[in-house]
């Protein structure tokens, strides 16, 4: 497998959220605004890449029977580091994400990639896999967040994570007609369900096309 395919498969073919359906808890909870989603995505990329690298380095030493507890301890240590860094440098983001930074520990994507990829592949491949999967995760939650923030508040505001008072980019189209339901929990399920339905429809169409081609032969 070439390096590029490893990087790309996390973004498209094996997108952790839309295809593998892993790590949904955090993806639904923190997608009320785009800034939060991107912050969470960066945290996940950092943890996933470093955990993949460390586990790949240790893969020949870790005994088979107790590998899961060892993985969990490694991941928990990394998450705590990220959490403390975020508390120090991005306090507003830390407060708005709350317990969900700590819950990266039990995010199925991280443990899943450790088990399925990092424990069998070289360090560079594992790091690329981590970056690819992390970017895939970030793109997916950003999609959900854009839809929710746009419909829920009528516009999109992106703030500087290091200083929340500084607005990087903002626009507002239909503030008076915003549907606040989309910023509430029900809106998260609704948005995610609709995006999944669109993806599934495309997949069915593609399959039908392929079938028609084979039938034509």
């Amino acid at each position, binding site marked *: 497998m070439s390096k590029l395919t490893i990087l790309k498969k996390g973004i498209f073919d094996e997108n952790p959220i839309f295809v593998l359906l892993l790590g949904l*808890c955090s993806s639904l909870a923190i997608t009320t605004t785009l800034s939060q989603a991107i912050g969470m995505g960066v945290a996940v990329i950092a943890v996933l890449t470093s955990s993949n690298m460390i586990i790949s380095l240790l893969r020949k030493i870790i005994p088979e029977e107790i590998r899961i507890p060892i993985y969990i301890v490694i991941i*928990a240590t990394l998450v705590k580091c990220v959490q403390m860094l975020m508390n120090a440098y991005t306090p507003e983001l830390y407060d708005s994400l709350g317990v969900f930074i700590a*819950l990266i520990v039990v995010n199925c994507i991280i443990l899943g990639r450790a088990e399925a990829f990092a424990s069998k592949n070289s360090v560079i491949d594992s790091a690329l896999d981590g970056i690819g999967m992390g970017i895939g995760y970030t793109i997916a939650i950003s999609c959900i967040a854009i839809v929710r923030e746009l419909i829920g508040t009528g516009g999109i505001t992106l703030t500087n994570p290091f200083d929340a008072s500084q607005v990087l980019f903002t626009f507002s189209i239909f503030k008076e007609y915003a549907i606040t339901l989309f910023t509430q929990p029900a809106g998260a399920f609704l948005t995610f369900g609709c995006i999944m339905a669109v993806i599934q429809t495309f997949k069915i169409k593609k399959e039908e096309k392929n079938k028609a081609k084979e039938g034509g032969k």
Partner: protein
Amino acid sequence: MFNLFTLFVSLSLVNNIVLNRFYAICPLLGVSKKSENALNMGYAVTFVIVVSAIITHILYYQVLLPLGIEYLDLITFILVIAALVQFVEMFLKKTSPTIYKAMGVYLPLITTNCAVLGVALDNITAGYTLIEAAVAAFAVSVGFTVVIYLFSTIRERLEINLVPKGFKGIPISLITAALMACAMAGFAGLV
């Protein structure tokens, strides 16, 4: 006493863990195809959440805080949970092989259920006493069990209904969850 009751109602209904706070979405979608499995999962999770909440609470206030090593909370909690799940698995295997067989696959999954770690961390953040923490953990798991059971019964009905092709499976389940979340929002302001 009244405080504890308020806490119970608020955590099991008003701030329902699954539909309002998004913990434990994975088991909600994964294990809810059959109502029987959903109930068994609910019981197992209830046990693990309540016991782990009590143990982590004691560990945090009796060991981590006096020693000044609160920053080790995540690592300690996740190890307690992993060990507890392993213990439940071994215990069930020895005492009642039938239940063990029925939920065999789902048991190890409880370790990565965000609800367990989430409740342990929330209890510390909220500063509950030991009794409050135990009640909160029980309330949360009752909320989880009720929602996952109701959701699974709806999904059983959905299986035989006509659904547009694109919405079959996960999408329609998520939209069902959205409607349930709307219904749950009706409890807001109860406490």
